[in-house]
């Protein structure tokens, strides 16, 4: 069963992140690198991506002529996806454990950041019908 683990944050969270020290960023990058490698080596990683900052986010709708109308000024409270993992594991409990590991990634001063990770099943297998 595949699950997506989504790391989200508000514009304020991203701004805060942009002020981290070099040392803190390096500690976090090292954690993510090792974490992703571990997921791959244990045969569960389907994909993982980090996304651009909200500054580059645009909401696109089609106008009546089908052409894009973009919208790029977002309220501070809006949640943005920062990055995600898709994993293939045996149970939701396993997905939650892995999400907790990601949530414990080091923040400033090496303290666990405890960022929220949203876990949702990737639409997939129907139940077994005899």
């Amino acid at each position, binding site marked *: 069963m595949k699950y997506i683990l989504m790391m989200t944050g508000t514009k304020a969270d991203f701004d805060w992140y942009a002020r981290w020290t070099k040392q803190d960023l390096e500690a976090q990058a090292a954690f993510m690198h090792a974490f992703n490698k571990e997921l791959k080596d244990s045969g569960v*990683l389907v994909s993982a991506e980090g996304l651009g900052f909200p500054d580059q986010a645009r909401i696109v709708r089609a106008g009546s002529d089908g052409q894009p109308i973009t919208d790029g000024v977002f309220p501070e409270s809006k949640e943005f996806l920062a990055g995600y993992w898709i994993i293939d594991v045996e149970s939701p409990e396993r997905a939650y454990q892995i999400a907790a590991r990601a949530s414990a990634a080091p923040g400033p001063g090496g303290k666990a950041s405890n960022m929220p990770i949203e876990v949702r099943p990737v639409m*997939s297998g129907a139940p077994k019908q005899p």
Partner: protein
Amino acid sequence: MSRELLDASSDHLLRELAPQVLGAVVRRFHDFAAAEDAVQEALLAAAMQWPRDGLPDSPRGWLIQVAARRMTDYLRSEEARRRRETEAAAEAAHLAPDAGVVTEPGHDDTLTLFFMCCHPSLTPSSAIALTLRAVGGLTTAEIAHAFLVPEATMSQRISRAKASIKASSLPFQLPTAQERAQRLRTVLHVLYLIFNEGYTSSAGAQLQRLELSGEAIRLARSVHALLPDDAEAAGLLALMLLTDARRAARSGPDEELIPLTKQDRTRWDRAEISEGIALLTAALAKGSIGPYQLQAAIAAVHDEAPSAEQTDWPQILALYDLLKRTSENPMVLLNHAIAEAMVHGPVKGLELVAELDSDPRLAGHHRLDAVRAHLLEMAGDRAAALTHYRLAAGRTTSVPERNYLIAQAARLSGDTANKVQATRGADLTEHS
């Protein structure tokens, strides 16, 4: 022979030969993990060379020879590495290939390989991947593609499975008489999971993945051929055939789910049904009835019904009564409730479903809501049925199933809206 035909037939031949070749190489070198890699390399070499140069005189011998050469290279480099680490002497004797047991064409280790790959210490997904590769002869890329994960991830999953087997220091031999029944159950269960994976698809909008169900049927055929007297191995193959027979009728042009009652039965595969029924009849005659035979028997009753209305529900109910005693699966209890409803009416079915509410294995499972919705609709409580169809739609993780459940809800809400309007209309007429 055209290039494609030769490709396809040598592909088929390679998959058939894979477990025999692997068995021979493991016997000779005693290292399952390394032998498995060597055989994969030999299979890849054959897939490149045979279509170009033609089939060798003895394809099996050719593959064993190439794999053995790879093994020897591997052991030499391992030995060199170990010597560098100054611990060569102790290992040298162990690594020396014991020549002689090479190509004994009558000997087939396929069954031993099934037991190795479906080792109880492995997680289901690891056992599935390893079985498809080591016994099925599929490449890692093919398996990764079937399960929609990257090849590197699948490769790691297989390596870890092999490492677990190595760590368990399981000898390459058939399980003992005491262990055998339990171990065979695990093998059959792994094949059942592969079939279901292909039949109901664990990935996105595609309802059925034919290659995986086809592979599961091929492997189940192989187990049945190796153990012709085992009634449950025959029962599993029969169940797969009797279920697979409905494949063409099971989804519409846009891959939408078509439930059993609405399927065009002329599209069911009669040859598969006949084969399944013949297998099942012979298995049941052996007198050791188990859950696969019972599930196959239920599938057979459906397959033999000329129309949904003519389904022999009392017989299905009797079979579920038996199945309930042999299986711990809560889905069996849910299906039993449906059969009760079909024989004794929806109220009886709803009572049984209510008993299942407290089963933690079914708590929050969409199928409980879907069955309840269906039975409520049968009982005439459309508003409650609508609620439960919507609950089920929110809880399923299959796109085709979600679409089906939303459509059921839409059908009822449309009906309800129309009825309310009709009633209002009548009210207005009366009052005016």
